[in-house]
C-alpha cells in the first residue's frame, strides 16, 4: 500500500504550478475573456514542453506511456489556478480514447502530433450537447449512441454557446455529412472514457474547491468585525471546517480512483463514479461557504472569487452533473460480503500491474523541461526539479 505520489509526480506538480502561476494568473485570466479564442497559446506551449499532452499517449507514438494517476496532479493544479482550457478532454480522455480505440494507422497519423502538443484534442461523451474548446482543437472526438467518430476541424461547423463562466468556451458541433473517421474500438472504450472524465473532472473540482477555501481562510483571518477577525467566530470557522472535511475526503477519493484506473483494477470505474460524486458535493459546499464567508466583497465583479465560483458551478453541472451519477451509484451491486469496494479490489489474488513507464522517462523529461523554461526565462528562482 502506498498513498503518496512519487517524487517524479510531485516534481511534475511543482513544474505545473509554476507554469500556471506565470501563465494563468487571475489578471491574465481576466484579460483572456476578451480575446478571440479566450486561450493563451503560450500556456499550451508550456504544458506541451512539460510533456503534459504526451502523458496518456503510448511510447510507440511519441508519448510517455503514463497513466491517469500521473495526470492527476496537473488536473488538481488546473482547478487551483482556474485554468479554463478543456484539459480533462484534451490531456486525459481524448488521448487515452485514441490510444485504446483507434486503428494502428489512425494512431500513427494523430498521436505523435497529440503527444507533441501540435495537435489539440477535445472530446464529448454521448448525450453531451456542448463541446468545450472545439475552436482551438485540431481533432474533435464525438461519442455517439452507436459509434465514436473523430473529426478534423474543417469537417465540422461550430456555433458558440455562451457560458455563465466568461472563460469557458462551449460550442455545438455539426459535422459535415459523411465526414469524420470512425474509431473501430470506440463504443467499447466509451465507458472507460467516461470514467476518466469522472476522475479527471473530480480532480479539477477538488482543486477549485481547495483554492476557494484558501481564499476564504485568508480573507476571514484579516477581515475584522466586532473588534475581532471574523474567522475567530465559530459561525464562520465551522463553515470552513465542514467544507474542508468534505474536500479532504473527496480529494482522497479522486486520487484513489485515478490510481485504480491506472492499475486497471476491477471496480476502478465504480470508484471513478463515486469519486465524481464526492468531488461535486465537496466543491458545492466549498463554493457555497466561500462566498458566504467572503460576504459582500465576494459578490463583486472586481474580486477574483467569482472566477472560481462560476467555474465550480460549470464543472458541477457538466459531464452529467451529480444526480444521474448518484442514481447510478445507488444501483451498483453491493457485491461481496459487506460491500467494501476497495476490499474487494485489494483482496483479489492476482494483481494486475499498471503499465506505466512514465516514471523512468519523466525524470529526464522534467530535467529537459527545466532547462527549456530557464532558457526562455519563464522561471525565476529555483529550477523545476
Amino acid at each position, binding site marked *: 500500500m502506498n498513498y503518496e505520489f512519487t517524487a517524479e509526480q510531485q516534481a511534475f506538480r511543482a513544474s505545473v504550478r509554476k507554469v500556471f502561476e506565470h501563465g494563468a494568473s487571475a489578471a491574465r485570466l481576466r484579460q483572456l475573456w476578451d480575446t478571440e479564442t479566450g486561450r493563451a497559446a503560450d500556456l499550451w506551449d508550456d504544458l506541451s514542453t512539460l510533456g503534459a499532452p504526451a502523458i496518456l499517449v503510448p511510447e510507440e507514438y511519441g508519448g510517455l506511456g503514463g497513466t491517469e494517476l500521473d495526470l492527476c496532479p496537473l488536473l488538481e493544479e488546473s482547478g487551483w489556478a482556474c485554468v479554463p482550457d478543456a484539459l480533462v478532454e484534451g490531456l486525459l480522455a481524448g488521448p487515452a480514447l485514441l490510444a485504446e480505440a483507434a486503428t494502428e494507422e489512425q494512431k500513427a497519423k494523430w498521436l505523435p502530433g497529440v503527444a507533441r502538443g501540435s495537435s489539440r484534442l477535445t472530446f464529448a461523451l454521448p448525450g453531451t450537447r456542448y463541446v468545450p474548446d472545439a475552436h482551438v482543437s485540431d481533432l474533435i472526438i464525438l461519442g455517439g449512441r452507436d459509434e465514436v467518430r473523430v473529426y478534423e476541424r474543417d469537417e465540422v461547423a461550430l456555433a458558440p454557446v455562451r457560458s455563465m463562466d466568461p472563460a469557458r468556451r462551449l460550442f455545438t458541433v455539426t459535422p459535415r455529412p459523411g465526414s469524420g473517421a470512425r474509431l473501430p474500438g470506440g463504443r467499447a472504450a466509451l465507458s472507460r472514457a467516461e470514467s476518466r472524465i469522472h476522475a479527471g473532472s473530480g480532480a479539477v473540482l477538488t482543486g477549485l474547491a481547495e483554492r476557494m477555501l484558501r481564499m476564504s481562510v485568508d480573507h476571514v483571518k484579516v477581515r475584522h468585525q466586532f473588534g475581532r477577525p471574523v474567522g475567530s467566530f465559530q459561525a464562520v470557522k465551522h463553515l470552513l471546517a465542514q467544507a*474542508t472535511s468534505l474536500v479532504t475526503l473527496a480529494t482522497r477519493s479522486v486520487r484513489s480512483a485515478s490510481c485504480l484506473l491506472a492499475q486497471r483494477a476491477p471496480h476502478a470505474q465504480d470508484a471513478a463514479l463515486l469519486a465524481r460524486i464526492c468531488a461535486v458535493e465537496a466543491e458545492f459546499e466549498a463554493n457555497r461557504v466561500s462566498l458566504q464567508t467572503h460576504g459582500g466583497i465576494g459578490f463583486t465583479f472586481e474580486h477574483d472569487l467569482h472566477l472560481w465560483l462560476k467555474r465550480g458551478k460549470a464543472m458541477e453541472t457538466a459531464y452529467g452533473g451529480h444526480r444521474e451519477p448518484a442514481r447510478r451509484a445507488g444501483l451498483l451491486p453491493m457485491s461481496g460480503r459487506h460491500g*467494501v469496494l476497495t476490499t474487494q479490489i*485489494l483482496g483479489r489474488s492476482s494483481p494486475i500491474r499498471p503499465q506505466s513507464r512514465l516514471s523512468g522517462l519523466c525524470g529526464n523529461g522534467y530535467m529537459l523541461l527545466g532547462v527549456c523554461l530557464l532558457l526562455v526565462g519563464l522561471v525565476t528562482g529555483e529550477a523545476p526539479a
Partner: protein
Amino acid sequence: MELEFSPEQREFRSRVRAWLRENRPTARFDPPDTEHGFAQHMQWEKRLFHAGYAAPGWPAEVGGLGLDLWAQLIYEEEYARLGLPERLNKMGLLHGGPTVLAHGTEQQQRDWLPGILDCSEIWCQGFSEPGAGSDLASLRTTGTITGDEIILNGQKTWTSAGPIATKMFALVRTDPAAARHHGISFVVFDLRRPGVEVRPLRQLHGHSGFAEVFLTDVRIPATSVVGPVNDGWRIAQTSLRLERGVGRGVHTKLAQALRGLAEAVQDAGADTGALQRLGSLRAWTFAYEQATYALTDTLARGGADEVMPSILKLRLSEIQTAIWEERLAMLGEEAETVDELGPGGELPPRHREYWHSRANEIFAGTNEIQKNIIGEQGLGLPREPRR
C-alpha cells in the same frame, strides 16, 4: 500511489479470517453488564487472549503480536466484517494501555498491561465531569498529594464500561494553583478502593454500560501517576488522539450499514430519490475508507497528521447518522415500531444503531470541538476567546 496489499498482508488476512470464523461465537451476546453477558464476553476474550489476538498491535514483549499498522487494520476489518462482539476491555486496549505503553514506567507496564490483555482488570476512562465536557481542562476532581499517597475527591461521568470496570485512568487536578492545563495529572487506580461509588447510567437507547463515578477521599499510591506529576494534560493527548484515530474497522461497519440500506432501498422499490441518496452515501463511504487508508499509510511511514483524525471523526459520525436516518425513513410508519426489547430493555438493532450514530456526534469530542480543531489547527484560523 499503489493500492495493493502485499502477498504477506493477503496471507495474514486469510489466516485471521480463518481463525475468527473457526472460533467466533455463534449467538449474539447479552450486554456485558449483565451476569450472563459478562460471562459470554469473558469466554470470548479468553479465547482471543490464548490465541494471541487480544491486542495485535501491542509489542510482543508485553503480550501483543507486534503487528504493524496495516496488519492491525486488516485484523480490525476482518473482526468487524464478521460482526464480532465489541471488545470488553476496549478502553484499556485502545486508550489506557497504549498511554501506559507510551508514557508509563517499566514497573507500571508490568503491573497493569497483563491484566488488560486477559481481562482480569477491566479499564474505564475518567476524563469527563459534570462541569467539564467540551471544556475538559476545567475539570475539578482533585488529587491531593500527601507523602506517598494521593487523595482523590470529585466526580467523573459518561464513563463507558463504568459498571463492569475495576480500574480507571483519570485526569485529576494535583496543583489547584496552576493554570488550567497545568496542574493536571494522569492517574490509574483501582475502583474497588474505599470511597469509590459507581452508579450505572442508562443511555437513551436502553443500553446501560455507562456510569457516573463518585470519588470521596479515595487514597491511592503516588506511584499511580503516569508520566510526570502535573503533566497529565499532555499525557492525555495520546489517549484522545487514539480515540479519534485510525478507524478500528469502522469503515467496514459503515459499509455494512450501507449494505443494509441498499437492501431496504431495493425492498421499497428503489425510487430515484432513494437511489441518489444511497449513491451519495456510498460515495462518502468509499471516500472515508480511502482517507482512513491514507492516514494509515502516513502513520505507518512514521509521519504525523494532527488534524486528519478530527476530519475522520466528524465525517464518520455524519455519514453514519445519514445512513441510519435514511434507513429509518425508508421504513415509513414501521420505523418507530418495536417488536421486542432486548435484555435490560434495550432497543432493537436498527434503533440502537441509529441512536448510537447520534451519540457518535457527541462523544470523543463533539463535532463542534472537531470543527474548532480543523479550523484552528488545520486552517490556522484565530482561536476562540478562551479563559
